[in-house]
C-alpha cells in the first residue's frame, strides 16, 4: 500500500512539474485574438477586426451527421496575406488545448474551402468537403504558416 501511495505521489509531483513548465512556456493569447507564426515572426490579430465574408455550406460531424453552416467568416486563404507570406507549404491551426489541423497550400488557397468563424465568442475552423470533422478546430488561438 505504501509503495502504491509513493508511486501515485511521485506521478502527481511529475505531472505538477510538467504542467508548471508547460503553462509558463506557452504563448498566452487574449480571447478573440489570433497568434500567427511564420518564419520566426509572430503577429497577433483580433478576429473581430478582420474583414469577413458570408459563409454557407454543409459540414459533417464525427457521427457523420450533416450540419448546415450559414454565417460570417474569415477565409483561411487570406491568412498568408495578413502575415505578408507568399510561399508556404502548409497552414496549421491550433486550438487552446493544442489540438491542431493542417491544410496544404492548395487547400488553404482555394476559395470557399476553409474559414474561421465565430462560435459563441470563440474562433472555430471549418473545412468544407471533409468526410469527418477531424479538421473542425474549436477555440482557435494560434495559426502556424510553414
Amino acid at each position, binding site marked *: 500500500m505504501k509503495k*502504491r501511495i509513493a*508511486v501515485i505521489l511521485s*506521478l502527481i509531483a511529475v*505531472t505538477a512539474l510538467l504542467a508548471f513548465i*508547460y503553462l509558463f512556456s*506557452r504563448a498566452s493569447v487574449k480571447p478573440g485574438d489570433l497568434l500567427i507564426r511564420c518564419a520566426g515572426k509572430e503577429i497577433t490579430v483580433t478576429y473581430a477586426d478582420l474583414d469577413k465574408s458570408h459563409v454557407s455550406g454543409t459540414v459533417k460531424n464525427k457521427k457523420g451527421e450533416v450540419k448546415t453552416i450559414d454565417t460570417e467568416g474569415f477565409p483561411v486563404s487570406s491568412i498568408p496575406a495578413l502575415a505578408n507570406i507568399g510561399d508556404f507549404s502548409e497552414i496549421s491551426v491550433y486550438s487552446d*488545448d493544442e489540438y491542431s489541423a493542417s491544410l496544404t497550400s492548395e487547400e488553404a488557397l482555394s476559395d470557399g474551402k476553409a474559414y474561421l468563424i465565430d462560435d459563441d465568442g470563440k474562433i472555430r475552423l471549418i473545412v468544407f468537403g471533409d468526410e469527418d470533422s477531424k479538421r473542425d478546430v474549436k477555440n482557435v488561438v494560434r495559426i502556424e504558416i510553414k
Partner: protein
Amino acid sequence: MKRIKLGQMIFMALCCDCGLIAKKLISPFADLITESLHIPGGIATGISLMFIIVPAASFRIFGCATLMSVIQSVLALSFGMVGSMGALAPIGYIIPGIVIDLCLFLFRRSASPSSGILAASIAASVSAALTADILVFRLYGIALCVYIAVAATTGAVCSLPASVLAGRISSYISDRTLKEDVLS
C-alpha cells in the same frame, strides 16, 4: 483458457456499461481540469478504464479485459459515444483492454496483486492517451508530456478504488490472495 461463468459475464457486462456511464458523467468535471491545463483530455478515460480492470483483476481470466473493451467499443458506437475519435473509437477502447490483459498476465505471479492493478491502470491510461494522440490530437513536446502525465496519474489514482473493489469481489470468488493484499 478458463470458462467464463454466467455470473461473471453479467458482472462484466455491468462493468462495461458502468465504464461508459462513468466516462460520460465525469467528463464535465474532467474538462474543467484539462481545460485549465490546456490539454485535450486524459482524465475521463482513465476513470472509465477502472471498470475494465476490476473484473479482469478479480476473475483472473486472460482476455477478459480485451473482451470487455470490444463490447464497450460496440456499445460506444451504438450509443454514438465516440468522443473525438469518431469511427476510430473502437481502436481507442480495444488497445487499453489488450494492455490491461498483458499487464495483469505479467504480474500474475507477483506477491502483491495490487501492483498488477496499479501497473495495468497506469499502462492502460497511458496507452489510451497515446492512441488518442496518434489518431486524433497529434500533440508533441511538452504538451504531449503533460497529457501523458495526467493520464498516468489518473490511472494510478484510479488503481486505489480498483484494488479495493477487486478485493471485495474476490471474496465472492474465493481469491484470498488479492483480498488479503488489499486489506493489509
